[in-house]
């Protein structure tokens, strides 16, 4: 009898990456994740009918569907999706550096970020939150504001599927544009490698105009960027700039790692000082941690 794969395997990027559709990825990941947590989608008194269930004593009678009772002589209670004023704003960096896929990684950084965004959007939608998506490079390439209307999730997923990373990232311009669009309370999730942004973004986040917003910065890096495992003489080609560099990795590895560590430290301390949750995600790590972190943050805000 085949054994059921563990939850971690199902949520690993190596597994999810094999599923082409982001919608399917989001469904698998979120449902699997929630079933693992023994949680269900939030139900409430919203306007969108969700399903029927058996009537239990104590249920509000106004939700009993009398027409069905008349036909079947049995009580069913109507269940509606809970409706909230919570916005989820997903800000994704689609610059060229996000197009990198390491030598051992199951997927590229942008693919990983897309899967994260899809899962987040799906989960938020199922929770009744309003999902918006902002994708930027040197300028915005996609803007989907949070909306209560149906079909927003499909637009988000389609947009994520469509994006092709490239060009440099203009973090400052992107953030300033986003802050002008914030209305409801909610969560802003940054998905980026934050290259060249360690000294730009934290001060900007620290000056959020509305304290009802919570920010989370998910730092997506490939393991190669951290460990720099190259050994042969290599000609490095920059993904964001039109520059090349021939060198011998064994001679520059130590200095590289030193610079990278300083970069991560600066970034972490900057986000911490701006009360932004910072999490470093490597493209070969499971999505479960990310989803759990989102849920914890949502519950805190609720």
């Amino acid at each position, binding site marked *: 009898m085949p054994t059921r794969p563990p939850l971690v395997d199902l949520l690993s990027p190596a597994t999810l990456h094999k599923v082409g559709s982001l919608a399917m990825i989001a469904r698998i990941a979120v449902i699997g994740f929630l079933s693992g947590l023994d949680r269900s989608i939030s139900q409430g008194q919203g306007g969108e009918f969700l399903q029927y269930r058996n009537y239990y004593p104590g249920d509000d009678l106004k939700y009993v569907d009398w027409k069905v009772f008349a036909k079947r002589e049995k009580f069913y209670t109507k269940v509606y999706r809970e409706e909230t004023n919570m916005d989820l704003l997903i800000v994704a960096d689609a610059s060229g550096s996000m197009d*990198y896929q390491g030598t051992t990684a199951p997927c590229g950084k942008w693919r990983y970020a897309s899967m994260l965004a899809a899962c987040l959007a799906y989960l938020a939608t199922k929770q009744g939150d309003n999902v918006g998506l902002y994708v930027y490079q040197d300028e915005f390439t996609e803007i989907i504001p949070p909306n209560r209307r149906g079909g927003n999730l499909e637009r988000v997923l389609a947009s994520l599927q469509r994006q092709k990373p490239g060009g440099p990232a203009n973090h400052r311009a992107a953030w300033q544009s986003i802050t002008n669009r914030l209305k409801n309370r909610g969560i802003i999730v940054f998905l980026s490698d934050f290259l*060249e942004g360690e000294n730009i973004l934290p001060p900007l986040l620290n000056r959020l105009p509305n304290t009802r917003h919570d920010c989370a910065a998910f730092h997506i890096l*490939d393991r190669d960027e951290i460990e720099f495992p190259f050994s042969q003489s*290599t000609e*490095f080609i*920059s*993904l964001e700039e039109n520059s090349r560099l*021939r060198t011998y990795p*064994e001679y520059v590895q*130590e200095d590289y790692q030193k610079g990278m560590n300083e970069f991560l430290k600066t970034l972490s301390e900057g986000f911490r000082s701006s009360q932004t949750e910072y999490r470093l995600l490597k493209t070969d790590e499971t999505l479960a941690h990310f989803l759990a972190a989102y849920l914890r943050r949502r519950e805190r805000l609720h």
Partner: protein
Amino acid sequence: MLTFQNPAFLFGLLLLAVPIFLHLIHRTIFRPQKFPSLRFILKGKFPLENKRRLRDILLLACRLLLLALLIGFLAGPRWTPPEALADSAADQPLHIFFVDASASMSGWDQMEIAREEIRQQLADLEGAPVALLVSADRPLVEIPPTTDHQSILRALTEAEAFLVQGQHRESLQLAYRWANDFLSSPGANIHLHTDRQNASWNPSVLPAAPSGLEWHWHQPVEEPRANTAILSVRLRPAAEERQEAVVEIRHFGESERQVEAELHIGDQTITRSLNLLPNQTTRTIIEIDRPTSNRGRLSLEADDYPADDTYHFWAGPTPPVEVTLLDREGLLPSEEAFFLERTLEARSETHWQEFNPNVVQPETFSSENPEQQEVIFLLGTGDQLDDSQWEHLESFVAEGGLLLITTGQNPARQNNILRQRDLLNLETIGVASATPRSGNDTIDWINPETPLGRLFDEEDARALLLVNLFRHARIRVDPEEATTLLRNRDEEPLLIEKPFHDGRIVYSAIGFDTSWSDLPLSGAFLPLIREIMATNLSEDHGIQRVATHLDRTPLARSLQLTPDALALADLSPDEPQALQIGEQPVEINVPREESDPTPTPLDEIEAALMPRGPSPQTAESEEEHLAAISISWRPYLLFLAVAFFLMELFFAASGRPTRSPSKNS
């Protein structure tokens, strides 16, 4: 011009391909790798690819140069400055003119012919380096390589043949040394003007030539050549107070020759017509009256080589022969010594040779006695001599002396010593004495095969055969050991002789006093003793015969005179003559070894002169010549090699990582 001592090492330059090949196969291939950002890579302090490429090229260049310099060092490059090269290119081959000026070249006008040939050759060699060697028994005229042809012509005009036997070894070696400087470049020629007379050109003594020397032989007069030479003239007594001149003349020619010989001595001039057979020596005797002059000369009709057509000889008395009588101890000389001394001092009408007897006793006889001793009489005193005196006697006889031994009072003991010293192996039987019954013994046999037998012919032998022998030592001797000269009636040897090295030993079984025989009182005693000694003395005894020679030192040494004393004698050794220096008669004549006109075959001479391997002198000379005109690059190459080696070490060290790679992965 750049030259190399060991050009074979230049093939080592092919090794330069090795580092180039290694460089090419290890050339860095950069794998393209897309990467999000280069900002952290740029923080690496290690030189980037361009810097490393430059370092690699410099390292390769250092290694190539280092290798090339080492190969160049081994190849030994030498730089010849253009000026020196131009001078060298302007050089012409050396021409050495070797003129044989030995005695034979004085004939047949050969010297004049040689001079003319050399003049013609010089005319064709304008500006070329030439050298002149006039050689007789040594180099007589030496003009080293020069372009001054006039000096050669002047020396050539003055050069004359010298009346000596040619010995050209030293001259040829000198010519080789001159030629060595030119052998490698531009070359050397040696022109030999010689008749190759066989005595002068003995192949066994000719020195081997260095390789590369070109030989040109010029024989002034082609064969055949004929020559007549007076080989010797000896005077000897003849009957009736006359003298006989024994003349030996050799004719070198293929046909007979009639020649007039003219002998001059004092006021006598005697002419003889001689018929000389081809290639034979003719011996003739010319009788003359007792000469009134001590100097004589025999002349032939002059031929093409006149130097040997005259012979100067000594006609006067010769110095007395020194004779030592080793007598037994006593206040007065023994009777034996007395008779011998008187006999030797006596003058004879028929014998000009005088003797100078000197009686000594064993205790005063030593090797320190004058070396003039020519004859020693051991008068039965052998048992009184010690070992050193016997050793002296042995060496005396071995070097050509005559030792005459009488039996003495104890013949067995003396004969035993002679046998032990391997001087004379005699078996002593005893002493035989005459008895009234047997009567006196006599000499019964004279060996007719010996000069003694020829002297005592039938008429003269009577006096010797009538000698009464009172007693004699009975000895027995192996005929192979010694020759018996006299025997008694019982055929027992009375007088024997034995050659011993260069000298002779004569043993008498009878003593020379009246107790042994009446021989000392007979008329046969004097001719017997004189003949015994005369046969031992050479025909040249008393006369010093030397060849005409410019160097007086050998003559002075043979006469035991200092060169100064010889100069005082007003002697001109290069002029044939007969003279007396002190009491020593001297005959100086042109050496007859040069009289034979037969040349040594050219192939034999060339075989002797053939180079035997590379001459070390040549190699050394070439090395010196190169060193003189060129500059060796070896020290500079070595210095540069060291510098590039240090640079190579520097570049190699600068390319190594100073920090070990991180192992975080």
